[in-house]
């Protein structure tokens, strides 16, 4: 596929992604942050239904021979830095009320706080780059290569897929209950 069509596809997919994020209300920091005070569970509902949909789609397309998983990029696992990064990210998320993707949604719909988060992201990346020499050891530590849960747990992929689906449905049931009793 040519670069031009690949970038065109990127744009179109992005438009769909951004549209849906805004539709769900995730461009609004107050709504998003409500997740962590359990007053608004949209984040969990959207994130996990998207994850489960994509996971099931990938599993079955692969099994039906319609998708070659070997051609799909699987990010590599770096256990320690990703755990550390996740913790920092989560802390920042609660302060900012928006994540990198949703900050663009917010900014595009007129919210100046979206722009502020974007500014902060750039500053954070600059700080990381400047301090890279000190951070490098942690950054590159515990490399496990492209590793999936089925491989790690020695469990067939379909079983992991079914379990994750069940877990997500459980979370949704819990979310429903929380919605009903405010």
């Amino acid at each position, binding site marked *: *596929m040519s670069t031009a069509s690949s970038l*065109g596809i*990127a744009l179109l997919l*992005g*438009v769909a*992604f*951004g549209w*849906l994020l*805004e539709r769900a*209300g995730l461009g609004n920091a107050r709504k998003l942050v409500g997740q962590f*005070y359990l007053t608004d569970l*949209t984040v969990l509902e*959207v*994130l*996990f239904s998207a*994850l489960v*949909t*994509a*996971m099931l789609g990938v599993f079955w397309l692969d099994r039906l021979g319609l*998708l070659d998983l070997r*051609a799909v*990029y699987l*990010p*590599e*696992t770096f*256990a320690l*830095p*990703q755990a*550390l*990064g*996740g*913790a920092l*990210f*989560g802390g*920042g*998320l*609660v*302060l900012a009320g928006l*994540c*990198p*993707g949703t900050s*663009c*949604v917010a*900014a*595009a719909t*007129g*919210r*100046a*706080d979206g722009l502020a*988060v974007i*500014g*902060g*992201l*750039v500053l954070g990346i*600059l700080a*990381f*780059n400047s301090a890279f020499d000190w*951070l490098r050891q942690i*950054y590159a530590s515990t490399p*496990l290569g492209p590793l999936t849960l089925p491989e790690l747990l020695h469990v067939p992929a379909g079983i992991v897929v079914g379990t994750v689906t069940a877990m997500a449905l459980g979370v949704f049931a819990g979310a429903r209950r929380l919605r009903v009793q405010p």
Partner: protein
Amino acid sequence: MTRYADPYLAGAGIGVVLVAAYVLVGQGLGASGAFASVTAALTAGVVGTARASASPAVAPYLPNGAASPLTDWLVWELAGVALGAFLSAWRAGRLARTIERGPGTGAPARVMTAVLGGALMGVGAKFARGCTSGQALSGGALLSVGSWIFIVTAFAAAFAAAPLARRLWS
């Protein structure tokens, strides 16, 4: 103003978009990578590509010593996100020049904490090689171990930090 969409329907829709990404271009959606790419370009612009390429943190984003956000898949995707969000908000009557903040928080405080939070996320996303879009969502759907580590630690940290930030939002 239109009501927000059903979160499960929106989520399922995002999932379909993600599968389309895997099928059409062999990779998932992302966001923080685009920021890293643009930051690298800005860095190169300020200190020159030679110095920028000398930094091992920045060099990966400068193939052949040139800043390339314009040919970066994630940058185009993020541009699309902004466009799609704008169109959706426009149609729904939700465009508003405002600052979303807690009722008791002044605009300056909100902006400062937004920048600070963004900076923390920027650092975190670099360590984690992604953010909620790239790791939690896209990597998570592929059952990548690192992505699930990110999901667990990010949500745990956010829930843990929430009480400390309560005054910001209520």
